[in-house]
């Protein structure tokens, strides 16, 4: 079955998101809430990736070869300034959204595979990913008027 491929996709998406959260934390360290919360979210993503690894390994054993163009690149580095921050948060949002839908897909598959452990993992992690999306949206809403209408 192909579940391993989506587990791998999600695993890599979580690793990439953790890395992107850390890059944004560093690039916008002068926004203390961005720095602290991005660092915390990076740890969340690490934990998600860690949780996925044993399932990815287990299902890899009876998976066919990985299909082409499974993975995508959503992040190519940070920017500076107020509008740069908005744009960086938007990248994080899209990356978190990729994880979010991948959790849904994996969750459905976990039911199909009748894998209780994987279902439990998905239940815990998809909620945390949803909060990441919400926080990014909240922070962008707060920043947008000043960054786009007021700042020089």
């Amino acid at each position, binding site marked *: 079955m192909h579940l391993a491929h989506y587990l791998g996709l999600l695993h890599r998406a979580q690793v990439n998101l953790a890395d992107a959260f850390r890059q944004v934390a560093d690039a916008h360290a002068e926004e203390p809430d961005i720095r602290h919360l991005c660092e915390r979210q990076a740890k969340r993503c690490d934990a998600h990736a860690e949780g996925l690894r044993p399932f990815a390994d287990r299902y890899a054993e009876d998976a066919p070869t990985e299909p082409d163009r499974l993975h995508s690149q959503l992040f190519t580095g940070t920017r500076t300034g107020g509008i740069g921050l908005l744009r960086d948060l938007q990248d994080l949002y899209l990356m978190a959204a990729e994880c979010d839908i991948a959790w849904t897909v994996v969750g459905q598959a976990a039911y199909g595979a009748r894998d209780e452990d994987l279902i439990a993992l998905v239940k815990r992690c998809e909620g945390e990913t949803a909060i990441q999306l919400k*926080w990014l949206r909240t922070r962008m809403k*707060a920043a947008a008027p000043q960054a786009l209408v007021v700042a020089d």
Partner: protein
Amino acid sequence: MVDRIADPWGERTPYGPGQEWPVRVDRYLADGRTDADVDRWVQSASVLHSNGDALDIAVADGRIVGVRGRAVDRINRGRLDPKDLYGWQANHSPDRLTRPLVREGGRLVETDWDTAMGRIVARSKELLDGPGGWGHFGFYTTGQLFLEEYYALGVIGKAGLGTPHMDGNTRLCTATAAAALKASFGTDGQPGSYTDVDHCDAIALWGHNVAETQTVLWMRMLDRRRGPNPPAMLAVDPRATPVAREADLHLAVRSGTNMALMNGLLREIIRRGWYDRDYVDAHTLGFEELRRIVDGYPPRRVADICDVPAADVERAAELLGTSQRLLSTVLQGFYQSNQATAAACGVNNLHLIRGMIGRPGAGIYQMNGQPTAQNTRETGADGDLPGLRNWENTAHIEELARLWNVDVDVIPHWAPPTHAMQIFRYAEQGSIKLLWISATNPAVSLPDLSRIRRVLAKPELFVVVQDLFLTETAELADVVLPGATWGEKTGTFTSVDRTVHISDKAVDPPGEAKPDLDIFLDYARRMDFRDRDGQPLIRWTGPEEVFEAWKECSRGRPCDYTGITYAKLRGGSGVQWPCTDEHPDGTERLYTDGRFPTDPDYCETYGHDLATGAEFTEPEYRAKEPDGRAFLHTVDYQPSPEVPDDEHPMLLTTGRTVYQFHTRTKTGRAPQLDRAAPDVWVELNPADAARLGIAEGDLVGVASARGGIQARARLCGIRPGVVFLPFHYGYFDQDPHERTPRAANELTVTAWDPVSKQPLFKVAAVAVEKLADGRGVPAPAPTVGGSAPPPDAGIPPTVGGPAAQATSGKE
């Protein structure tokens, strides 16, 4: 006669549960005057702490000559805090600002009001011209003005300029109280009443050194403790404060770990069956999720995280879990620490699961640090909307638009109100170009002062400061406006337990100084703000008109003032909101029927994730179907953003002394108070001091990643690994050329709670080293309060002497 410097709490008047707190009238008249020398007494209340004590101002020959407590008042029953007894003398200080100042060639020079206001208005109009003009304005106000002044300022900002960049230093003191009340109960508003002290059988003080911050409330607690059937007492504080010394159980938790403690206590109470299942089922939401999270905090784990004995966690849970009438009070040890809102919600959770709410003795004080902080929250001068409205609820915004007769979209509701730290960030980045600071002193009170000074000194930022004195902040301003103060103007203000007091004008302000309300109204007139019909937006001329307008704004909201008039407030005692036609005497306790204001159409917020501050949407909130139930929210413990490391191995916590208020703008100018605590000190545990080779009185350097200060060491009962600095000490009383760094906020970190946005003053990592030998001279720290040395230290006691003789009696 009583020396209220030597004994800030005065004589005990013990009483038993359910009895009325006995009257004790405190008074202080200066210069040997007696009552016979007083021309008249003018009604007021305290603005030097948040208790809300009612007092009368003595006037003779057109000057204030003293004060006395109001025996009829429900809050203090005649008692006064030492800051109130002596602090009014600052009104007469020779260095009061009496004329406006403007910056000319780099210096501040005296000018007239027309010139000063002309400059502000010219700059304002220039900035307002063009799209996004509103975004260049920032207002940073205080917790010491009057309700009328905040409301006028709120209307100017939100309906006149249309800016969301308005906040107060209440962000530093009370933002978490508001956030926690909203999160748990649906709207702001303190459930309890100060009279809960009279009825309770247990008092829990969560990070609240009430003995020094609100001495009169502490007197009430001490009087219960000295009477029959005294309440049990629990203190959570890393310092050996007077509260901790009095308490039956003291948990000196490691700074930044309150959340683990709260989860652990809740777990114990649930597992031991000490919660009220019926109340939980009928009146709360989220119990199963709460239980799931707190289950991860057995006493052993809490003991490890908090560094307190596991047995003490169990004892605390038993004290809390077996009481019948539990009173909790929460302040900066929670609010200014890691996971502030979540930890404060933990206290609300405790009361909710035990059904300890809405009846005598079962009270919660989510405290305020400043006296009129409650009013900034109610009127919208801080990051809230007037009348505790929900900025995400279109109907609420439409109500305001109708009330003010302006277009809905003028009122900034399209993004959350900008909190103080973000206002300074926008000023730092340059998009806020005019920053108007009223009656507060961010150049001493905000974290990371070298950064704040850099922001305020930026030539592109036009800084207006409105204050009594040339504060450290005013020194950096472009225009300084001389304000009238308490005793020199009329207005109302509201204490933590929703009690509204009036403060009448007793004397004229000095020189050309003006009430803050007059300054705001003058600005509105000169700016010519118009409503939708082209009429002046603001037509008020005096405080009572503003109060009447505010009543309309509050109508139907939780803080309904419509039953209150100036006449009703004069002569008697304070009145607690909501006060309406149906409840003409006010309302002593909220939620007596277990119904909470969580209705989606009425609530003040749709809620936040406590770990990140992420906002929940209206549909998500509606889906919870709160139906008048309160919310049980908790999260897992997370370490602080800053924890000790090899370079900075100790934790700094900051706070107050009983003798000073805020940045000493007034108390530093009252001789008795100034002498009692004249200079900064640093508290060290004797074990840490011994390791570092530091003795009492030695000069010590304390350094963080932001900066360093020098202070003399007081060896006392703080927990090992933690150092304490009082936050009051700035630089105004030092020669500009001889200033040594001594403000605690040179060291503190720029970081804040994700929900309340309250800065984390309590968890900076620091290094401590000895700089010079004290040669046996003790630190300038009071021997009263949290800085009390061990009894055998041989340090002369702090006394006020003949100049501090006050009276205290039954009358």
